[in-house]
């Protein structure tokens, strides 16, 4: 497998975005429409206390995924209420097309005291082709369980033969480290299934073996079927010193499966790595694979977790 990089596709600071956002376009996720591809991402404003809040926005590009047509001009999802699981932002958002509606699985963030953040997965619906989404309730559809104690997030959903499959992450540890200012978290990829998208069966089992030690953090799985197998891209990093140390930051991982449940990890076959210089030289993260007109595209973020936008690569066949 070989992905050919086409470079930065969207640079948020060149555009006017809703909700007063101008930096960060994180975790791009595509919805193929008749006349364009709508790419959702999370961007950021600062609240009264100077802390970041993540907002959902989108950019429409042409179906060749080469040219920006327009950006969202209005709020895509309203901010959540006081004390809700997604009060301090949504990052990322994953959209699934259904007849007459689009559903979005959201990863909601709320701030904590002992640790910086907790996350859980919510559900929202759009009936206007993805221009706006309404939560179907104020709480999450997937939060912590005895076996998945915190940081449930990063949903990616496919519906196959009436079964909803979700690949997502949950936290396995929070640890104080003397060398770092705040506690460090470790999270891993897991799989859940559902008949209706609301009630999910899951068992606290991680499905992708670690490649860089037991404290490897795995995030943002994206899954597609191709040539008789299931393929997963995700990103992974070390648990500490990952923000500015190029050797410990996010890279893209790859795994494949005959059935979507049992996975073989094979990062060497990922077909993409950091560049020697430029916007994606230090880090690769938040991958999203989609197909349009017979071509597979990989959207992803680069340095600084997507502060300067996202790029696109195409699959060579």
């Amino acid at each position, binding site marked *: 497998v070989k992905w050919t990089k086409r470079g930065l596709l969207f640079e948020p600071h060149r555009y006017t975005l809703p909700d007063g956002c101008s930096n960060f376009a994180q975790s791009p996720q595509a919805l193929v429409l008749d006349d364009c591809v709508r790419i959702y991402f999370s961007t950021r404003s600062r609240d009264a206390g100077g802390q970041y809040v993540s907002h959902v926005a989108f950019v429409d590009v042409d179906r060749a995924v080469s040219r920006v047509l327009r950006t969202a001009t209005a709020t895509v999802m309203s901010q959540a209420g006081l*004390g809700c699981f997604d009060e301090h932002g949504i990052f990322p958002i994953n959209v699934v097309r259904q007849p007459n509606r689009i559903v979005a699985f959201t990863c909601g963030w709320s701030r904590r005291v*002992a640790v910086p953040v907790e996350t859980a997965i919510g559900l929202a619906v759009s009936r206007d082709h993805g221009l706006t989404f309404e939560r179907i309730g104020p*709480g999450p559809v997937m939060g912590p369980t*005895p076996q998945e104690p915190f940081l449930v997030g990063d949903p990616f959903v496919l519906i196959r033969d009436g079964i909803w499959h979700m690949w997502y992450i949950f936290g396995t540890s929070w640890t104080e480290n003397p060398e770092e200012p705040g506690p460090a978290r470790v999270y891993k990829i897991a799989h859940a299934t559902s008949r209706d998208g609301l009630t999910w069966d899951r068992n606290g089992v991680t499905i992708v073996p670690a490649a860089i030690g037991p404290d490897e953090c795995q995030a943002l799985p994206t899954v597609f079927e191709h040539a008789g197998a299931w393929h997963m891209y995700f990103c992974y990093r070390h648990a500490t010193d990952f923000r500015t140390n190029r050797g410990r930051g996010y890279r893209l991982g790859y795994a494949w499966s005959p059935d979507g449940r049992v996975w073989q990890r094979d990062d060497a076959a990922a077909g993409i790595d950091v560049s020697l210089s430029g916007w994606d030289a230090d880090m690769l993260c938040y991958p999203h694979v989609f197909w349009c007109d017979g071509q597979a595209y990989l959207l992803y973020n680069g340095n600084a977790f997507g502060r300067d936008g996202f790029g696109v690569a195409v699959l060579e066949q």
Partner: protein
Amino acid sequence: MFSWRKLGHVLDPERIDRPEWMREFAQAPATLVFDTFVRVYFSCRPPADAAGQYVSRAAYVDLKRDNLFEVVGVSPEPIMDLGGLGTFDQFGTYPTSVIRHGDEVRAYYGGWTRCASVPFDVAIGYAVSRDRGATFEKHGRGPVLGASLHEPFVISGPKIRRFGDRWCLWYIAGTKWIPTTGRAEPVYRIRMATSTDGLRWERDGRELIPARLEADECQASPDVIFANGAYHMFFCYRHSLGYRGREKGYRIGYARSTDLATWTRDDTKAGIDVSDTGWDSEMISYPHVFELDGRTLMFYLGNQVGRRGFGLAELDGSLS
């Protein structure tokens, strides 16, 4: 109307010899009856930290079965640990409700974490004792009942019961946080979930008890006992704001059901109210009703929601 005769102040934490972790409060009593004594679980607090923040710990006191005013034992250590960094119960276990199941004692408890925009969140955890209720081991590191689509926060106040093969968990769920000039205040209402194994819960999905005081009435401690063909729920309720004094503080309410689906609230039947003076003259809350040797008894909290512990009342007649 029921008639509860107050028997007195059973446990005042300030009047017993107690360790530092049990320094303040004795809240949310729940009983487990043994041959010669009644074990009363409650939640207590070490002194507040420099920022004025408390953690809640779970404890018990053993009272002599034929004289519940005589203390015959106290838990030497908290009956369960606090959760680790970042878990739902890192900052408290309050309240606790227990039930026997074979050789085990099962505990359901509210686990407390601290949040940035609101002071706290609560979710319900589950723990098991294999030493007759002396110590409890938690089931996993996360909650068995936490926030869900239509119950977004403050899932607390568990009361566990079993009727036949059906496990019933009454609890409260937050409906909103009210912003104030100080810290935000939650509104919460009584709900129910059922289970066939005590682990996987099916939520009933409704508020069981209509509000009476005001639209934002807060309800807690939904304590259910079956007697004379009906389910009797004693609970407590208060105003959402300004509730720290006599006027708007907790009182004990009552509701009745014959099918566990429909409840009829009638606080005039509760039959217990604040006293004119003394430790329970400003508020009464967190009722727990149980039967012992042919008597129907209620433990409950007094002023400041258990700062001075709990008292005992006895029903004249029966629940009907």
